[in-house]
């Protein structure tokens, strides 16, 4: 009985301790932000790894998601004789929800896990302590550029995802199923509001970018420096990112669209 209580207490305490470490870690990274301005090349290199190499995955996924939305939406909407609203449905679901959320999930799998594994391995092979020995702060030199690369890449990738997705839906809806092209675009433009939909989508993707990269770099930095520890940290990075993104998406949606 006491053993169970002790285990519960231990889990709670270590959970809080980890949360505290994550926050202190984040503050230190943020206070090291100036390094980005002094050495922008570090950021550019990470943007390449995190952003540019994700373009193909994000673009292809966006195209297929858009095509599926086109097919499914057409089936449902044609029951009501409202095929012309296909554009609205595709654009609203992509810009508001699927763009930011699916991009964040793919991003955590494609870039977040790589960040965690890379930083975890740096810690295991004592590269981070080596840097500290040379009076180079690894938080500024290694972590901050990776964090900002994720922060800047996420909204760009999400916009790309939504845009390609809408063209995927256009390809299926207008090209294959014969929805009227004018109605597709004009109804979309009439229904999608810049401030309400597009800006809120960008805000979402910014928040998800922070969450996913924060979790990824922290899990790597906090990993137990063994090969098993790094593998666990990589798993946790993806799992926690998915939970955090979906959970915060609900809160953000309730705040933005809940009226």
């Amino acid at each position: 009985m006491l053993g169970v209580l002790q285990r519960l207490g231990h889990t709670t305490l270590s959970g809080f301790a980890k949360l505290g470490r994550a926050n202190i870690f984040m503050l230190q990274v943020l206070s090291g932000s100036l390094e980005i301005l002094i050495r922008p090349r570090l950021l550019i290199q990470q943007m390449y790894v995190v952003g540019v190499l994700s373009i193909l995955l994000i673009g292809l996924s966006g195209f297929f998601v858009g095509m599926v939305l086109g097919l499914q939406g057409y089936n449902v909407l044609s029951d009501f004789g409202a095929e012309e609203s296909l554009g609205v449905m595709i654009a609203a679901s992509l810009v508001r929800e699927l763009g930011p959320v699916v991009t964040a999930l793919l991003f955590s799998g494609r870039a977040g896990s790589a960040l965690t594994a890379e930083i975890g391995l740096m810690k295991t092979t004592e590269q981070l302590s080596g840097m500290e020995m040379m009076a180079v702060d690894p938080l500024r030199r290694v972590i901050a550029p990776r964090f900002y690369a994720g922060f800047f890449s996420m909204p760009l990738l999400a916009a790309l995802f939504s845009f390609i997705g809408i063209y995927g839906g256009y390809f299926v809806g207008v090209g294959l199923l014969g929805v009227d092209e004018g109605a597709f675009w004009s109804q979309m433009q009439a229904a999608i509001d810049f401030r309400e939909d597009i800006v809120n989508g960008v805000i979402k993707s910014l928040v998800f970018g922070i969450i996913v990269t924060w979790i990824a770099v922290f899990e790597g930095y906090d990993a137990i420096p063994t090969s098993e520890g790094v593998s666990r940290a990589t798993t946790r990075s993806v799992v926690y990112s998915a939970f955090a993104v979906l959970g915060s998406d609900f809160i953000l949606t309730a705040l933005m669209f809940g009226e």
Partner: protein
Amino acid sequence: MYNTRMIEIGVGFFVALGLAALFLLAMKVSNLSEYGDQHKGYHLFARFQNIGSLKVRSPVKMAGVTIGRVSRISLDDENYEAVVEMRIQPKYNKLPDDSIASIYTAGLLGEQYIALEAGGSPDFLKDGDEIEITQSALVLEELIGRFFMKAGDKASDPADQ
């Protein structure tokens, strides 16, 4: 590791691509292209008994062409009428001052909009003018209610005679 120049070109390409996607989303998908006109134009007022589900930013149309948007809706609590303020684009400045404003629905389940019907007066509406002749929104429940009342009357009439 990688060639620095190639990396920088790649990142530049990525950022340009992302920003272009965002820009195109704003211009092609949303209604941003109308935003520039939002603070231009002149105001007209109209009073309605019932505005149904008319909302701020609903279109104002004449002959089916969108010429402005609803900018504010308030209730006059002395006459219990809805006061609708519309902003009309400046290029449409030749609306006769005896025009009729009605609230219609686009399609069976579509959004509601204000339709202006031109009158024959030689004088034009100016900023701050009020449209005198208005026709309220059709509320479906009222129509159905009236229909049933009539049906009920007819059914009971033969029984009386």
